[in-house]
């Protein structure tokens, strides 16, 4: 699967560059922003008790053109690792899993009309949901940017 390996290496590099920009820890009025990643290529960007979740650039490239995003409703609760929605790409509906436990407080409504935005803004404007985290300790089991970069490179081979 040489073409897939080349693609995934390219995307892994691009995803890492994007992640490196997101992973900077900044202080703004006492708030800290950090990004964490799952082996299944979801991310959570933490802002206090709120985690902004979506799929990574690596995932969107591997899936292909995104044509539909199925999201939960505000108020829905999910456990870490539980499926909270799915993305459809050409022929496949791929489940998306909650990186952390919590309650959905906001859903990105733009994606219902513009699912293709996931392909261009996966780790930016095309976030899926914002979750009020139930247990911030769950973040410890997720990957940081460096570990995620390594994970992507290993998957590409």
């Amino acid at each position, binding site marked *: *699967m040489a073409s*897939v390996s080349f693609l995934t290496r390219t995307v892994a590099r691009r995803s890492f560059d994007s992640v490196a920009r997101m992973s900077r820890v900044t202080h703004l009025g006492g708030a800290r922003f950090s990004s964490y990643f799952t082996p*299944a290529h979801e991310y959570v960007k933490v802002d206090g008790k709120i985690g902004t979740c979506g799929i990574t650039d690596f995932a969107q490239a*591997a*899936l*292909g*053109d995104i*044509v*539909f995003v*199925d999201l939960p409703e505000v108020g829905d609760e999910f456990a870490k*690792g539980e*499926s909270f929605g*799915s993305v*459809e*790409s*050409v*022929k*496949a*509906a*791929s*489940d998306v*899993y909650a990186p952390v436990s919590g309650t959905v407080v906001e859903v990105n409504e733009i994606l219902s009309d513009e*699912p293709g935005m996931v392909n261009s803004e996966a780790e930016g404007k095309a976030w899926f949901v914002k979750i009020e985290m139930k247990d911030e300790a769950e973040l410890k089991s997720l990957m940081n940017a460096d570990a995620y970069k390594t994970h992507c490179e290993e*998957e590409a081979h």
Partner: protein
Amino acid sequence: MLTRRRRRRRWTSTTTTAPTVQYLDLTGLSILERLVLEEYVYQTQTQCNWVLIGTHGLQSTLEESSPWSLASSFLHSSRDAAIVLGIGGKIPELLYTKPVQDDQIPVIRRFSGGGTVLMNGDCIWTTLMGRDFPTRPFYPRPLMEYTATHFFHPLFTRLQSYQQLKQQQSNDHHSSTTITTDNLFSLREHDYVWDKDSKIAGNAQSIGKTGWLHHTSFLWQIPSGMSRYLRLPAKRPEYRASRPHEDFVRALSQIFPHLTVDDFRRAFRETSQTVYSVESSCVLSELQEEYLLPVVVPEGGLRQWYQTKSRTKVMTQF
């Protein structure tokens, strides 16, 4: 959990031996029951790999008392056919809604991705579910290539051999039809095609952390009404151009005029036995006896699961 015949075996992704699969022939289920049962197996029976086949109409052969029956959800129509959409399908974009409503064609949204198909008893529906198959990672394109190369190309080679044998047996030397002896099955863009240009099957997938599902609908005969009900999809493969449905898809009965649906089922079973290690094999009557998959009974039967957990839905408002 399977019964006593199941052997517990731990597979790793580096295994070089053939994956072990459980085989089900679900002919006799209704279209809706097939979809929901398949979704149920995919979501809950995650310890096994599965191979499924069947032909389905609107009605079911199950007794209403069967735990697998969706009798209360029987669909009624002037035709024994239903339209099945992918999970993200938008009805106004995909269907001519007035003829669909006038002809009372049921519309079902399935749990997997992919396009729109007009299903009836002339469609052969196959499904592969992989938990630990030798293909990683679980992404759409690698799965398409795996299924085409490792399963369906061998299947069509087998069908060609059946065709040759039957043609010889019929002494049909004077037929004006030229039947190719070459296996012209291939994967083009995201479609299974014959002779590079004619689509012969619709594919759809569902992918999750417990594995993947890849199901395929082959048209043994072209159902009437495709262009009446189904719009030309806005997103379509380049090789299709703007060909209408009847010019784009090709029926298997045209490619294999000497064969029957039962020949296809036999070839599918034999290919499964060659490519995989088939641990158990069951037809619908055995399912009714609760020989396999007994866990649905404590859940209140497939009907209860359909109403509470299934993503498959009959669309009533459009």
